């Protein structure tokens, strides 16, 4: 009985962080699908989202008759998403668009430059020490059998799933969503039928960054301490998730995120907690070696 409950608890822990990985992974996958660009700075957008969430929470709490509890959380998430969406669009416009027709290396290095820029800007503005979120939600435990859930975890799961469903509907049914898929499939053909590349690409960055921002706020509330360094590792793991699901594949990114979260949690619980961060990298390397198209991606034939 004990063994089973630990196992389930580890799954629950993994799913929570997995939701956040999924939100960030979606940003990577959408951008890569259209531009074949690994947006290295995406992890930092996530980190900025966490800080914006901190600002939002602190400000909203200061309003005397303002929202509290769950409505406050939702408001903070929305505000942060708006902020990161804008940031994403700006980054694309000024750092990536000028390089759209150059080699592969240039945007990668630029992305690394943007990443450093964001990290250090945040460090200079907010200070180098860890920052903690104010107490918004009183953490309550709910026990189902021997598994413990907190109200925060439930809220994170709910919000993430909602966002993912909204995204799915958007991509499937709206004109912009279809345009994105068209661009990802065949950019030349899409342009020929009148798809405005620049606008759609900006949209892609907007959506991806907004999702990362949401992930950031929830991450900040869940762990309570945020630091300007958080973006790097989480970004890398989320990228692994995107690749695991098949990079360019939207449902794949969602599944990939959850899977990475669970695998990490199980690995840390049963094998070794010290090596937790390594599991994600190992999975990444294994996928790239043996199945680079990921779980849901197309089988890539090597051209001769």
């Amino acid at each position: 009985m004990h063994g089973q409950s630990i196992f389930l608890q580890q799954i629950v822990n993994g799913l929570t962080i997995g939701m956040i990985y999924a939100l960030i992974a979606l940003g990577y996958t959408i951008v890569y699908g259209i531009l074949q660009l690994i947006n290295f700075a995406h992890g930092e957008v996530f980190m900025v989202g966490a800080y914006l969430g901190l600002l939002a929470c602190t400000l909203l709490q200061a309003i005397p008759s303002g929202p509290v509890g769950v409505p406050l959380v939702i408001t903070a998430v929305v505000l942060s998403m708006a902020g990161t969406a804008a940031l994403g669009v700006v980054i694309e416009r000024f750092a990536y668009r000028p390089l759209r027709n150059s080699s592969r290396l240039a945007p990668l290095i630029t992305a690394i430059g943007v990443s450093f820029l964001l990290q250090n800007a945040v460090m200079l503005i907010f200070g180098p020490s860890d920052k903690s979120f104010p107490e918004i939600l009183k953490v309550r435990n709910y026990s189902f059998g021997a598994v413990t859930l907190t109200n925060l975890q439930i809220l994170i799961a709910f919000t993430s799933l909602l966002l993912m469903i909204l995204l799915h509907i958007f991509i499937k049914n709206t004109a912009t969503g279809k345009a994105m898929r068209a661009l990802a499939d065949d950019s030349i053909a899409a342009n020929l039928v009148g798809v405005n590349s620049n606008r759609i690409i900006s949209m892609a960055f907007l959506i991806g960054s907004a999702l990362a921002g949401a992930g950031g706020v929830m991450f900040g509330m869940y762990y309570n301490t945020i630091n300007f360094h958080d973006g790097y590792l989480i970004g890398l793991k989320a990228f692994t998730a995107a690749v695991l699901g098949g990079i360019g594949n939207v449902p794949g990114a969602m599944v990939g995120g959850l899977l990475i979260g669970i695998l990490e949690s199980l690995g840390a619980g049963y094998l070794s907690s010290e090596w937790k961060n390594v599991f994600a990298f190992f999975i990444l390397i294994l996928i790239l070696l043996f199945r680079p198209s990921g779980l849901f991606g197309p089988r890539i034939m090597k051209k001769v």
Partner: protein
Amino acid sequence: MKKISSSSWAFLIILSFITGCGQGTPEKPVIKIGCAAPLTGDQAQIGIDTCHGVQLAIDQANEKNASSSYKFEALSLDDQHNPAQAVNAAKKFVADRDVLAVVGHFNSSCTKPASAIYHEARLTQVTAASTNPEISRQGFDTFFRVAATDDVQGPRGADFVAKKLSIKKVFVIDDKTTYGKGLADEFEKESRKLGVIILGHEGITQGDKDFSSLLTKIAPSNPDLIYFGGIYPEGALLIRQARALNIRAAFMGGDGLVTPVFIQLATPEIAEGTYATMVGGDMKKLPSAQEFISAYEKHYGKLGQWSAYGYDAANILITAIQKASQKDRETVLRAMREIPKFEGVTGEIVFDEKGDNQKQFIGIFKVEKGEFTYLGPAE
């Protein structure tokens, strides 16, 4: 004549431009005291606290001796609790001839390699916070320590747990640094001797955020107490995540936890009831401390536990420098060795031949009502 290619010219011009920009510093009648600690990064708060203490001591000394022929100046360098950077900082201090003494470093993993550099340069070094006993066992006559050592802190903590709290089952966690692992190992050794059951001993990585997997693994064995050898960022996360998983064990650590930031990061409600050993007692009870506390709070705001240690360390060095007949490193070192005892705001300080503080005082603190409150001395 064959033309030199434009790339060669570019190469030359850039080379000469870069090197032309170096200047030497003009001479000033200044005596510098270095302060080496993590000033940026996740442990910045305790580093900044320490160096503020040093700065205050120096400002006060300058005020009191406005008529003397020299002026004190603090030179703070960041080591980001990284041993390699600590070595770099040490070399910088050594290269600056105005530096006659250094308060540093904070983390034992930094102080240890740096001490070799200071020893080679005959530069006096006083650490305000490094508690690992091995540092003073290296035989460096330039090394001094104001804080107590972990081979005293760990066992006294174990004593408290076994006898005062009557705890039977403990799980030990450490952050694998020189300090954290050293402290946790000492605690475990003594606890076993006192008959406490150690359910397990695991390591975590500094900088990590998610310990829920580890804690989930620990939960079924139902420890009465979780002992953590490490620093406050990870400590706060551990206790938060433990409570979220419904682990009701008491939580205890060493001096690395003792700072208001720990309570802030863990939230006062969750931090309530946490125990910690500290190298020193209740400052508020010492009359000499009152002036210090009010002066510090006027300049820098909230007092951190480590500010007082930085302050005392700097003041001992100032005393030695003032006593030294010649203002050079070797004479200052000799003067240090000749100080019989020193009354600081953290208590009495007497150095033994190894440089350790003979008057090692370990106090037990507990978080009560959102603050670290002094319970009493550890036996």
